[in-house]
């Protein structure tokens, strides 16, 4: 199963490499602007933290760690392209049919067919570099156990965002046109937080780690991994647990949605439905 997935990721990587080599100028510009956008988004909170020495009790290095963690999550998701996350567009544009006539399980197609590993490595590199720098600055003991927990939390954050996007995206199974853009709207709703959420009122914070789980994409895992004030010993497992719960919910919706799709199919095919 893993070998087959890697083989398909390889096929996606080849397509990505071909596209970059054929459209070199565009690809370079795209990569640079993406890098500038991500760096710029990180810079503002870092400058605020430097100016005041901390944000909400978080030292500068911890703020950098949180932002770097978020950048790694975002860049890893971007490496798989838009198509796995924007399910509603696939449904609304009649594009899911492309996936269903491929002799592969749907999850593998969604995961691999827009794999673009060469576009987003600068942001990933920046995120990893800042993650390392801030961890050293905070004197974190990077034991194998801690690194394992970091990896589990990174994967859990990705899973939380995926589950959130899929839960909303599945609405398009029942309203293909009306909900075609709902995945994009959901993606705009659940964005990385730029500042630690500790000073935020408790009820709002509760919303940001449940209904709109932006807090699970960097803030809560960073606080737990760095053992900052307010973090309990078990908090490091909160994001993975949330990922399991939300993932299960999204999976049920996806199964119901696919059953609905088998009943109704896709009634239209738009110009935006070409394979890209």
């Amino acid at each position, binding site marked *: 199963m893993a070998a*087959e997935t890697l*083989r*398909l990721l*390889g*096929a996606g990587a*080849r*397509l990505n490499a*071909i*596209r970059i080599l*054929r*459209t070199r100028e565009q690809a370079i510009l795209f990569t640079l602007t993406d890098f500038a956008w991500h760096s710029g988004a990180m810079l503002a909170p870092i400058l605020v933290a430097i100016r005041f020495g901390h944000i909400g009790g978080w030292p500068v290095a911890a703020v950098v760690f949180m932002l770097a963690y978020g950048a790694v999550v975002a860049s890893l998701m971007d490496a798989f392209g838009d198509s796995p996350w924007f399910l509603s567009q696939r449904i609304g544009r*009649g594009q899911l*049919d*492309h996936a*269903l*006539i*491929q*002799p*592969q*399980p749907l999850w593998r*197609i969604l995961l691999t*067919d827009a794999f673009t590993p060469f576009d987003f490595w600068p942001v990933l590199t920046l995120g990893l570099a800042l993650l390392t720098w801030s961890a050293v600055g905070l004197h974190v003991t990077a034991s194998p156990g801690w690194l394992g927990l970091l990896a589990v939390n990174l994967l859990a954050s990705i899973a939380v965002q995926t589950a959130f996007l899929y839960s909303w995206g599945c609405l398009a199974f029942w309203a293909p046109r009306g909900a075609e853009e709902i995945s994009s709207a959901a993606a705009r709703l659940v964005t990385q937080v730029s500042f630690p959420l500790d000073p935020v009122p408790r009820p709002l914070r509760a919303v940001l780690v449940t209904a709109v789980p932006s807090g699970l994409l960097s803030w809560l895992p960073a606080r737990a991994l760095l053992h900052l004030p307010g973090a309990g010993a078990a908090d490091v497992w909160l994001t993975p647990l949330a990922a399991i719960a939300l993932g299960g919910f999204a999976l049920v919706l996806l199964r119901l949605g696919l059953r609905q799709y*088998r*009943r*109704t*199919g*896709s*009634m239209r*095919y738009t110009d935006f*439905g*070409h*394979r*890209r």
Partner: protein
Amino acid sequence: MATAVELRGVRKSFRRRLRSATFAGLLRDVARPRREIVTALAGIDLTVEAGEMVAYAGPNGAGKSTTIKLLAGLLSPDAGTVRSLGVDPVRDRVRYVGKIGVVFGQRTELWWDHPVAATFAWRKTVWGIPDDVYRRSLSFARELLGLDPFWNASARELSLGQRMRADLALALVGEPRILFLDEPTIGLDVLVKQQVLEAIRTLNRERALTVMITSHDMPDLEQLRARIVLLNAGAIAFDGSFEELRRRLGDRRRLVLETDAAEAPALPGASHLRTEGTRHEYAFDAIVTPIPELLATAAARTHLVDVETHRAPIEDVIADLYRDWRGR
């Protein structure tokens, strides 16, 4: 001969939401949504043997594309059974779709921003096609459909005809056992259409590939010399050869008279279609009104300069049939 496709009592209907055109009506629709049931397939039985070519035709909304989608594993029937290559296309989707080729005329399987060649290489990986089968089928498909001139062009740069040839070739890579073609000639110019149809005939004749093709273009389907299945309102209205269909519908003919008068003479047993100058065209059924009898009547009523008779185009025959169906 083995059975390739078997549909038994297949029913499929869709719910369509009705929407008003007025503001008050739209408000009513919000409070009390109205829906109607559209029956795409009303319990059809169909068997296609391996190596057979079946032309699947019918007016818009007859259920052609729904059948192809059922057979491609994209839809489930409401009732009845769908078996293709001995399996249920939905339940055994992953295993099954690797053995079929599907082409939808109005969409493309080519990667839009990539060279045609890249999509083929991608398909080899995703379909898990062994090297020898890939080399053999690719070389055959490239030659059959003449892909070399645009092999390295991006799909977005291709003309509609080139795109369709590439899509058809893509479906052939991996040597599928059945080819489902949904409107593959839609929008193509005459030359490309001929090339695509000839390729489909070659595949069926020389490779014994089972082909199921839908089209609105009856002359295209007649040219394939396939078994024709005509659908009407979700039911099979005819299943047989084109010759049999013509026989069943009568021997519809056209008579063109060149006379010395601008007024078309009235001919009992023939209906006047059009007049251009002194040239008058009629439609008639040669079984009901024999040609010698009609010509004798014409000669008695006007001065004939020239006479032509020919079979009515299959399109006209089918159009008459569709009109009959709608009128019922």
